[in-house]
């Protein structure tokens, strides 16, 4: 009998919730592996760990030929979004060295979700610090309902999305303050209270949301133009701009 499996652990500095609707006792090893992968990523890709791959790459201690495939992927993604945003998004901030955290999060969690899928899970949801990946449906015939936190009220939602096999990421400053900088100016990003991106995978959704937030108001149109992305943005005047294709739940 499928009883479902739920687990919450703190990994990479944020809480990660796994909700396997079609899981049972036999799913537990796959969930263990998914969390083990996230912990491995934390050790290898944290810029705050001195001997991590990322720290060593930032200090130019790694031979380009010796980069792991994983790090190569992450660097490629960082590079793409930096170019695509005209430098508003950057993983090379002055005084901070190489910090790919904004890319690594979505990429790593998408990888964890893919591991669950490969292990046979077909109806599940992973929420990593507010970034969400869904597979299948919450119940047969019923899509996942993912609420977007209101940018000014932590206990309220501003929209509910309806998802099957999709990912949602939100970038905002309401929690950690001005932690996202506009790489073009070095100043905290301005213009948006929050921006939410829906995409087919969390690698894209998370990177696009963060990059768009760094761009400010012009990031709304930029994100809307990203292939396969739907956008819900709240500007500093509390106006909502969204793409017509956003899967708003009825």
């Amino acid at each position: 009998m499928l009883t479902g499996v739920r687990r919450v652990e703190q990994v990479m500095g944020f809480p990660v919730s796994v909700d396997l609707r079609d899981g049972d006792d036999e799913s537990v090893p796959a969930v263990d592996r998914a969390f083990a992968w996230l912990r491995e990523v934390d050790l290898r890709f944290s810029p705050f760990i001195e001997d991590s791959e990322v720290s060593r790459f930032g200090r130019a201690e790694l031979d380009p030929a010796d980069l792991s495939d994983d790090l190569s992927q992450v660097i490629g993604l960082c590079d793409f979004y930096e170019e695509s945003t005209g430098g508003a998004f950057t993983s090379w901030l002055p005084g901070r060295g190489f910090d790919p955290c904004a890319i690594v999060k979505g990429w790593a969690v998408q990888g964890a979700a893919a591991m669950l899928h490969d292990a046979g899970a077909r109806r599940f949801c992973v929420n990593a610090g507010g970034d969400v990946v869904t597979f299948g449906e919450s119940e047969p015939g019923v899509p996942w309902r993912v609420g977007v936190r209101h940018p000014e009220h932590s206990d309220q939602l501003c929209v509910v999305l309806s998802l099957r096999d999709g990912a949602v990421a939100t970038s905002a400053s309401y929690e950690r303050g001005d932690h996202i900088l506009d790489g073009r100016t070095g100043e905290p990003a301005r213009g948006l209270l929050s921006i939410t991106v829906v995409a087919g995978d969390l690698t894209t959704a998370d990177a696009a949301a963060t990059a768009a937030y760094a761009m400010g108001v012009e990031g709304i149109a930029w994100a809307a133009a990203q292939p396969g992305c739907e956008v819900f943005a709240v500007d500093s005047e509390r106006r909502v701009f969204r793409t017509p294709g956003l899967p708003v739940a009825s």
Partner: protein
Amino acid sequence: MKIHRAIPIAVLSVAGLVPLWQYEARPASTTEVAADVGVVPEAQTRTTSEPPTTSAQPGTGYGTPPTTTTSKAPATAAAKTVNGPVVDTPHGDVQVQVTFTGDKITGVKFLKAPNTGPTKSAVPTLVQETLKAGSAKVDSVSGATQTSEAYVQSLQAAIDAKGN
């Protein structure tokens, strides 16, 4: 920096190339933006090359597991040709062949291409709405919940605590 620029080809899988075809097949378009979207400047299309999606299979949304190996950027300048898998897209089967020379893509050609072109425009018209606040029954909550302190107070924590 050099390394920085050399890597994207390593991750430009066939999945990433399919949209390249879609983009090229599309006539240059000017973005239409609703007249009341006054705050969105530069809404004229300024896109778009494709993100080097490491994980997406078009149409499935499924990611490649992180253990999957990807070819690394070659350190030397020998030309290398790679055939991608046949990818089933909404427009038909697509298969590309990519030639790398050193750290650059020097050729992309379609081994299979669908007959009909896509119609999706680059930037959709944005809809403007007023900000709402409310509650609803949801399975998960998206938001910037990056600290454990905030998590404890979040709706997601309530969902996790409640279970199914």
